[in-house]
C-alpha cells in the first residue's frame, strides 16, 4: 500500500512539473492572459494547491539533473521528458534553482511568475530580474541554483560529511575487482554467484541515481593495466546511465547493468596471447574473437541459476556485436530484431572500446571523435534513436575530453550538461597565461554581464597524443 502511495505521489509531483512547464511553454507563444495559458494554469492549481495545503508549502528544486519536491527526488517520467528538459533548460538559463510555493496559489500568482519568467529571459541578469519581480509575490518565491559540484568539492576539501567521490570510487573499484573475481572463477571452473553480481550492480544503480556524473567520470579513465575488467564495468555504467535517461526503473537498470557487465564474458575462452596481441589479428584469430558472444552465452548459462537477469545477460552477450542491420557477428539464420538492452550495450561498448587503448584498433580515439564515428553508424549498425539519447547523456564533449577554449585555456571536460550539451563543466589545466594549473572547474554555460558566454570550446585535443593522464585529474 505504501509503495502504491509512493507511486501515486511520484505521479502527482511529476504532473506538477509537467504542467508548470506547459504553462511556461504556452506563455512563450501566447500572451499570459490568453485562454490557452489560462486553461493551463487552471489545470495546475488543482494539482499544486492540495499539496501546498497538506505539506504547508511546496519547494520545487533543480539539483544537478534532477527535480526535487520538498527534498524528495522526482522520479524520471518518460512521457514528460520534453517538458522536464524544457523546464530544466529554462531554469538554468535564468540560474533559478528553486521555486517556493509558500501559500495556496491563485491564478494571479502564476501570471506574475510568467511575466517574471519571460522578462528574465530577455535580461542580461536573468536571475536578478526574476528575483526582483517575484519579490512582489507573497506566495511564490525563487532561489538561485545550487552549484552542487562546487558544494561537493568544498565538502571534500573540508573533510565534512560523507565524501561522495570516495564512496563512488569505492563502488566502481569494487565492481572491477568483483568482475576480475568472476573471470577468475570461471577460469577455474568455480560457480559464479549471480546474487553477488546483483549487489554490485545495485550499488552502481544507487550511485547513478544519486549523481551520475561522478560515476561516469570514472569511466573516462582508460589507462588501467586490467583493461578487460574496467571495460566490462565501464560498459555497465554507461549502459545504466543511458537506461536511466530512457526512464528505466531501478530493477530494470539492475538487469541492464548486469547484462552489460557480462557482455564480454565469452572472451574468457580466448587465449590471453590472442586477446592482448600487440599486432593485428590473423584470420583464424578473428574467427576466434567472433565466437566470444556465443562463448558468453555458454558461460552465463553455466552459472546455474536461471532467471530473468540471466536471460537478459545471455541475449546481450549474443547480440552485442550483431549490429542493428545484422552486418556484425555472429551471423544468424532465423532472427528478428535486436533486443533493446543489446542495442544500448552495443553503443556503450563501442564508445568505451573506441576511447580505450586496449582494443583491436590499439589506438584510443578521443571521446568527441568517437561520437562522430558512431554517428556515421547511427541508423545502420547502431540504433539511431538510442544514439540521440547517448549523445544527450555524454554530451557533445564527453567527460575526459581535452578541450581548448576561446580564452586560450586548456581544460578537461569534468561534467556534462544535460541542458546545454555543448557547454559542459571544464577543469582548467592550462590557464590563459600558458601555465599548468589544476582548476578551477568552470561552467561553460556562465555568461558575462553582457550576456556573452565567458568561455566556449573552440576545438578538442587528443589527450593520448599529449600524454595527458586523466587519472591525475579525476581520481
Amino acid at each position, binding site marked *: 500500500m505504501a509503495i502504491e502511495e509512493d507511486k501515486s505521489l511520484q505521479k502527482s509531483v511529476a504532473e506538477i512539473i509537467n504542467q508548470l512547464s506547459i504553462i511556461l511553454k504556452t506563455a512563450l507563444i501566447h500572451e499570459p492572459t490568453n485562454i490557452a495559458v489560462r486553461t493551463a494554469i487552471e489545470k495546475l492549481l488543482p494539482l499544486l494547491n492540495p499539496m501546498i495545503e497538506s505539506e504547508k508549502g511546496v519547494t520545487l528544486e533543480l539539483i544537478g539533473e534532477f527535480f526535487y519536491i520538498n527534498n524528495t527526488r522526482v522520479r524520471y517520467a518518460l512521457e514528460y521528458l520534453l517538458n522536464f528538459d524544457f523546464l530544466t533548460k529554462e531554469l538554468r538559463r535564468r540560474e533559478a534553482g528553486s521555486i517556493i510555493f509558500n501559500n495556496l496559489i491563485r491564478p494571479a500568482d502564476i501570471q506574475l511568475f510568467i511575466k517574471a519568467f519571460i522578462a528574465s529571459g530577455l535580461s542580461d541578469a536573468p536571475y536578478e530580474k526574476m528575483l526582483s519581480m517575484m519579490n512582489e509575490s507573497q506566495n511564490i518565491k525563487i532561489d538561485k541554483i545550487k552549484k552542487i559540484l562546487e558544494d561537493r568539492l568544498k565538502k571534500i576539501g573540508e573533510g565534512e560529511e560523507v565524501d561522495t567521490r570516495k564512496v563512488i570510487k569505492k563502488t566502481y573499484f569494487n565492481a572491477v575487482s568483483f568482475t576480475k573475481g568472476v573471470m577468475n572463477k570461471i577460469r577455474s571452473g568455480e560457480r559464479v554467484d549471480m546474487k553477488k553480481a546483483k549487489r554490485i550492480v545495485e550499488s552502481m544503480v544507487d550511485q547513478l541515481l544519486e549523481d551520475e556524473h561522478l560515476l561516469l567520470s570514472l569511466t573516462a579513465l582508460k589507462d588501467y593495466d586490467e583493461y578487460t575488467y574496467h571495460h566490462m564495468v565501464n560498459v555497465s555504467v554507461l549502459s545504466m546511465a543511458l537506461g536511466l535517461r530512457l526512464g528505466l526503473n*531501478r530493477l530494470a537498470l539492475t538487469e541492464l547493468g548486469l547484462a552489460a557487465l557480462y557482455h564480454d564474458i565469452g572472451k574468457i575462452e580466448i587465449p590471453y596471447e590472442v586477446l592482448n596481441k600487440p599486432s593485428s589479428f590473423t584470420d583464424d584469430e578473428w574467427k576466434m574473437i567472433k565466437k566470444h558472444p556465443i562463448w558468453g552465452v555458454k558461460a552465463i548459462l553455466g552459472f546455474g541459476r536461471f532467471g530473468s537477469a540471466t536471460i537478459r545477460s545471455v541475449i546481450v552477450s549474443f547480440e552485442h556485436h550483431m549490429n542493428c542491420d545484422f552486418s556484425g557477428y555472429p551471423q544468424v539464420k532465423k532472427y528478428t530484431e535486436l533486443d533493446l538492452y543489446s542495442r544500448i550495450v552495443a553503443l556503450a561498448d563501442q564508445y568505451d572500446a573506441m576511447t580505450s587503448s586496449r582494443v583491436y584498433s590499439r589506438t584510443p580515439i578521443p571521446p568527441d571523435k568517437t561520437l562522430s564515428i558512431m554517428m556515421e553508424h547511427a541508423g545502420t549498425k547502431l540504433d539511431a534513436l538510442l544514439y540521440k539519447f547517448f549523445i*544527450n547523456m555524454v554530451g557533445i564533449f564527453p567527460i575526459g575530453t581535452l578541450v581548448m577554449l576561446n580564452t586560450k585555456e586548456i581544460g578537461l571536460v569534468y561534467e556534462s550538461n544535460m541542458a546545454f550539451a555543448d557547454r559542459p563543466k571544464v577543469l582548467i589545466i592550462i590557464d590563459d597565461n600558458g601555465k599548468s594549473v589544476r582548476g578551477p572547474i568552470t561552467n561553460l554555460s556562465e555568461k558575462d554581464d553582457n550576456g556573452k558566454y565567458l568561455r566556449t570550446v573552440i576545438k578538442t585535443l587528443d589527450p593520448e597524443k599529449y600524454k595527458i593522464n586523466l587519472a591525475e585529474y579525476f581520481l
Partner: protein
Amino acid sequence: MEQTEDINIVKDILQTILKARKTLKMYPQNNPMYIKTLEETYNKFKDFFDFKDELSFKIGQNSIFYDSEEIYHKAEKEDNLALFFFKDGLRELTFKKGLPQEELEEFLKIITLDFERETVDEDVVTLLWERDFQNIKHIVDDTVLLDIEGEDYEAKALSDSKQKVSDIEGLMKAYDEEFREEDTKEVPIISFTDKDLKILMKELENDSMNKIEKLSDILFEILYQSEELGGILEDVLRFLKNTIKFSMGQGDLKSVIQLIDRAKGLIEDPSSTEDIKKYMKLLITYPGSEEIINLLGEILDSNVKIEDDVFMDFIKLLDKRAIVPLVNVLGELKTFRVREKVINALIFLGKQDIKTLTMTLNDTRWYVVRNIINIIRKIGDRRANEYLLKSIKHEDIRVRKEVIRGLGELGGEEALQPLKERLDDIDAGVRIEAVRAIGSIGSTLAKSIILDKIDDKDFKGRDFEEKKEFYRVLSKWKDDPGIFDFLTKMLKKGFFFLRARNYEDRACAAYCLGLIGNKDALPLLYKQADSGNKLLDDLTQIAIKRIERGD
C-alpha cells in the same frame, strides 16, 4: 525516555520481531495468529515512535546493538538474526517514524525467508533494496562481495594509474600548437521530437514482453552453428532443457510448445546433421519427464492461469512416458478445478497407451485409483477390462464401485463372473453398482445372473431399495417374454411367512412391470392395487399410471 527504559523498550521490540519472524513463517497471511502478531509488532514500533523519530540497529556478526548497547547476542549459527543480516553485509538497519504496517509486513516477510533452503535468487540486502522502502533504511558493507583476498584492488589501481604522470611538456606543446591543430568533426546537437518519444515508449512497452522466445532463438542459432563450434551440443541441450524448466516455472506453456515445435522441425529437416537430430530427439521427450510434469502440477495448483487449449496443446507434446508422472501429480493436486484438466490430459494420453495407464492402478492412494478407473471409463477401451478386473476386489469401497461402473460400460462377457461375485459384496452400494453393471452388459447370461440372484433365498432379506434396483435393472429386458412371466408370477406369489418381505418383492415386481410398460400387465396390476399393503399399493398405482400414460 530514560536511557535504560529506552533500551528495554528496544529490546522488547527486537524480541517482538523475533517472535513475528517465527509466527509469520508458520501461518498463512489470513490466519488470525499472523494478523495478531503483525499488529502487535506494528504497535510496538508505533509506541516507540511516539517518543523518537527513528530506531537504528547496528549489526555485528553475532550481536545487534542499539545506542552501543548490545541488545541481542547469539553464539550459535542456527536461527541467529544478527548473523542472518551480517553475512550479506548488512551493518545498519533504521526504521523511521511514519513506518506503515504494510512496509513492516514486507520487511518481516523478507526476514522469514530461509535463504539456505529456498530457491531465492536474491540475498537479504537485494530484497531490501528492491522493495525500496521509504521508512526502512539500511547500510551495507559491499566488501563482503569481493573474493580476491589480500588484494586492495582500488589502492593498487589508483597507485598504478597515478604513476603514469602527465607529460607537462606534451601538454605545453599542445598549447603551442593550438591553432595548427585540425578541428574535430562537429557532432550536432540533436533534440528529441514527440515522434522520438512515441517510438521509445513503444520500444519500452515491447521490451516488457517475454524474453524466452528470444533465448530460444539464440540457442537454436547456436545449434545451427554447432558443427563449427564443436562439442557444444551437449551444452545446448542442457540450456534448452533449462529454458523449458524455467518456462514451466513461469507457467509459460506457450514458449515450451514453440520450442518443442522447433526441435521437431529440426528432426524433420533433411539438412540437420544426425547429431542435431539425436539431441533434438532427447529434447522433445523432456516435457514429459517427472521433473517437468511436477512443475506443471505446481503451476496448476498456483494462481497462474493457463488456457485450456494451451494446456491441451502442451499435453499433445507428451507421450506415454508422461502418464506415470501425471498420475502422481493428479494425486498431489490440491485444487479440485485443475484435477479435471489433468484427467483430460490422461484421457488423451491413455488413449495412446492404455497399458501404461492401467499400470498405475497399483497406486496406493485410493482416490488416485478411482480417478484412473474413471479415466479408463472415459477412454472406453475394452482392452482395459483385464486390468480393471484386477482391482475389482480393491479394499476401498469407492474404488470397487468405480471399477464395477467401468466394467459395466466397457462390457464383455468376461466381466460377468467377477461382477456376479460382487452381487454378494459386503457393501450394498457395491452390490447395486454390480447389478447395474451386469444390466449394462445386457447379455442373456447377464439376465440369468440377475434372475438367479433374485431367486436366491438370501435375496429376500436385503433392503428394499437394493431389491428395487435389481428389478429396475431387469426392466432392461422389457421385450423378453420370460421376464414378463417372471414378474407376473412374482406379483401373484403368496407366502405364509415373512409377509412383509413378500410384499416388498411383489412391490418390486409391480414397479418393474411399470417400467417395462407392457399393457398386458394392467389387469393383474389393477387387481393388486387394493392389496391393503401400502408399499405394494403405492408402487402398483405408479406402475399403472406409467403404463396408461405410455411413459
